[in-house]
């Protein structure tokens, strides 16, 4: 029996996509990038890593952008609240800590953006390992 950990970024994107549009794992690029509706970027923020055979502690970075600063602010608070609720929706996730959204505009494009981090423990899924046939 082995334990497979989830990809924390992919899991967070999957969860947030249940409630929000435009949840992305990569920063959109190009001169035409102009998010008039909120874009929620989820990134890998490192973190302590594997804690035990069954738990992975990971820090995630959330970057909420919108050309309308008020919309970006409201969305970031809503996303943070949704993430605080995650452990009550999914028993394989435990909130270990986090901060509150801080105004951190994208320096290249002067886009309004709010940034915050959360650290979660993710429980891995057991899987039976079978030897391959020669």
């Amino acid at each position, binding site marked *: 029996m082995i334990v497979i950990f989830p990809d924390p970024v992919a899991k967070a994107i999957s969860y947030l996509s249940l409630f929000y549009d435009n949840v992305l794992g990569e*920063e959109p690029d190009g001169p035409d990038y102009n998010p008039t509706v909120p874009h929620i970027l989820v*990134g*890998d*923020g*490192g*973190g*302590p*890593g594997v804690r035990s055979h069954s738990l992975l502690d990971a*820090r995630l*970075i959330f970057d909420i952008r919108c050309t309308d600063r008020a919309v970006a602010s409201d969305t970031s608070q809503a996303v943070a609240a949704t993430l605080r609720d995650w452990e009550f929706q999914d028993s394989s996730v435990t909130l270990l800590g986090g901060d509150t959204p801080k105004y951190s505009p994208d*320096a290249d494009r002067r886009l309004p953006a709010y940034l915050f*981090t959360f650290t979660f423990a993710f429980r891995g899924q057991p899987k039976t390992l079978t030897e391959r046939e020669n």
Partner: protein
Amino acid sequence: MASTTIKVKFNKGAMEALRKDPSLRADLVKRAEMVARKASDNGRVEGYKVTDLVLEDPRGAVSVMATGHAAYHNRKNHALLKALEAGK
């Protein structure tokens, strides 16, 4: 049973001296250098600077700053945040 009163008096001067102790500061610098090394991908990205903040009062403090190209690298990759655990 008779109750016993224990008085604890903190020595503020000793605490400040402890926080500025050279060995403690050296430990902080070592940890900061490990964070900078990790953030800079073992020195491949230039501009991550470790500074011993000697005038910081009343404690010893060391900073890791992303300057020049490192500032851009850190903004794009969140390298300092990801490297935090290297200082533990």
